[in-house]
Structure formats: C-alpha cells, structure tokens
C-alpha cells in the first residue's frame, strides 16, 4: 500500500503545486462589470450565456462526443456555443473533454490562464471529474480530477457523456451565468405532436 499511496500523493502534490503557482499569478475578479447598472448587467450576462465560445481542445474519447455535439445532428449552435476557437485568447469556455495527465496538466493550466475573463470551465466525463477508470492504486500520472488544477463550473458525468449531456452541461452553465435556465426565450414545442412526427 505504502508505495502506491506515495505515487498518488506525488500526482496530487504535483497538481496542488500547479494550482498554487497558477493562483499566485491570478487576478481575483468579482465578476463585476465596470458599470453596476442592474439592467446592463443582466443584458450582458444573458448575452454571455448565449454566446459561449468554447476552445477547440480535446483530450480523449470525450472529445469525440464533443465533436458530435458540434455537428449538424446534435447542433450545439442551437444554444449559441458553436464557435469553437483554436486560440485560448478568443474563448471564454474551456471544455476539459478527457483525461488530464501529469505531462498535459501544465498545458491545461496555461490554456486556462490564457483565456480572458470572464471564463468558465466544464469538466466533461469521469476522467476530468475524478480520474475515472484511472483513479486506481497503480495510477502514476493521471490528475484525478481537473478541479485540482483549475476551477470548474459544471461537471458532466459519463464515460463518455452523450452529446445530450454536454448540451445539458451548457444549459446548466447558462443557468449559472444568467441565473435562469433559458436566458433567451426558447421556441415552444408545437402543441400538436403530429406536426413534428418524422
């Protein structure tokens, strides 16, 4: 037991160290806007929630589901989060879709730090949440939970989660940002179900 625990502690200690280093350089922001006008604030938050720009950043098999979510069949653009950007400077949503290992962890922290605030993080899948199948005694290089290195807003369980789950995660994040579940009025389903029969 002793030796394996030591190894896990090493991974954890490594993650903690990264987090500490990152926190030191971070500027605390309260999420406050320049003007504290209530209506402006509300409008801006609704806009932010409906225009999340995720980073094109896939780490493992969850990324395949993330790609599927972006494609026409599931179509994440229905909720305004389709603008996947290849540069962290242009993003405000980091979807950690997969396993974060020790070698990757500094890169993840760098990407997070490069994103301009306000920014949000979704931990997608069991690996990003808690290490998933890698959270075993013998684990020597998987960070058990990405929240050990960067703050996470929404957790989406699943191995991997289905695209619907990712959409639900996006909706939850919108809820967190704007305070209501559908900050933008949604189209109502037709009352007569015959109409949408495919």
């Amino acid at each position, binding site marked *: 037991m002793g*030796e394996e625990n030591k*190894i896990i502690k090493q991974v954890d200690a*490594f993650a903690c160290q990264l987090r500490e280093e990152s926190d030191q350089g971070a500027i605390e922001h309260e999420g406050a806007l320049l003007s504290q006008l209530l209506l402006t604030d509300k409008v801006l938050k609704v806009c932010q929630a409906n225009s999340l720009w995720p980073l094109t950043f896939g780490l493992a098999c969850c990324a395949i589901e993330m790609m599927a979510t972006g494609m026409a069949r599931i179509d994440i653009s229905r909720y305004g989060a389709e603008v996947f950007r290849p540069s962290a400077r242009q993003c405000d949503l980091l979807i950690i879709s997969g396993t974060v290992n*020790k*070698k990757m962890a500094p890169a993840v922290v760098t990407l997070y730090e490069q994103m301009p605030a306000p920014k949000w993080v979704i931990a997608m899948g069991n690996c990003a949440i808690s290490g998933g199948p890698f959270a075993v005694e*013998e684990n*020597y*290089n998987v960070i058990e939970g990405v929240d050990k290195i960067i703050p996470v807003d929404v957790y989406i369980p699943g191995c991997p989660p289905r695209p619907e789950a990712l959409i639900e995660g996006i909706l939850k994040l919108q809820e967190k940002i704007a305070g209501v579940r559908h900050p933008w009025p949604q189209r109502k389903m037709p009352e007569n179900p015959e109409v949408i029969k495919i």
Partner: protein
Amino acid sequence: MSLTQELISTLTAMQVEAGETDYSKCGYHIGVHLKDDQVRNFAQAMLEKGFYLDFVTAIHVTPQFQIVYQFAKFEEACRVNAKALALDDGSIPTISDIYHGADWHERETHDFYGVSFTGHQDLRTLLLCDEDSDLKPLLKKEEKLLSIEGITRKAVENKDTKAEKTEKTNHSPEQE
C-alpha cells in the same frame, strides 16, 4: 523452403536459439532466445531479411530484465518474437542504429522500466514528464516479482494434454 524454415536455419547458423512455435497459441511463428551480445547481429540479420520492427518492450523479472523484440513482415505471415536477457545492471546493446524505429521504443522502455540501452544516442524521457524521469512506473513490487520460469508457459510450445493445460492456468496470470 518456407520463409519460417529459412529464417530458422539462418538464425541457427548464427548460433541463435530459434524454434518454430504454434501461431494459434502464442501469436508468433518463430520464438527466439538471444544472449545479450547476439542482439545486434540478430537485428542486422532481421533487417537484411526484410522484417520490420513491431515493438520493443521489457518484462520485469528476477534476476534481470527480459527484453522482448517483435518483428514481422508485410509480404508474408511471419512474426518473430525475440527475447533477450539484459545484463545484471539492466543494460542491453541498442538496436536503434540498425532499426531507426527502435529509437522511441527503446526510450519508452527506458522510461517505464529503466532499462538502459547502451549506445543509444538520446535516452531522454519520452512519454513521462521530466519530473518523473526516475519514476519507472511499470516496475513490479517486490512481492509480485517472479523469475523467468514463473512467467513462462512451458506447455505452449509442445502439444499437451488437458491435465497439463489446467496446470498451466494455475500459473501466474502474466504470460510470456
């Protein structure tokens, strides 16, 4: 003469211990056992025969590491599994200058087991992060360490009865 036969006779002429195996049971056609000073000559011979290197790995056994090389050929179904015993200090001559593809395989093996390939030009860590260059994560714990006999399935190479097969399953789950 089939390729298998031809290769075995070539290897035997080099005083390398090689024998035909049952592919359906062990997944390769020729099993080769090497001494540490034969590794490079053997690799050279395989290259001349037109084989490609599939992988290099190590098995952590006592008293020294067993290094496994597997070769195969595109034109013909002939897979060669070569095992070599490392020296006492865990080193073995590199074949990365003969098979360039062995370069990263050997670095990976060095990462995970700490086998040092003498003559390798660049044994930096490949897969592990730099902080973990001394970790050697795939080494076995003391109590689980077995000898080569303990991990060898003796019944594989000769036809055996059912009774022996059940005895075989009682062996350690680690296979060759």
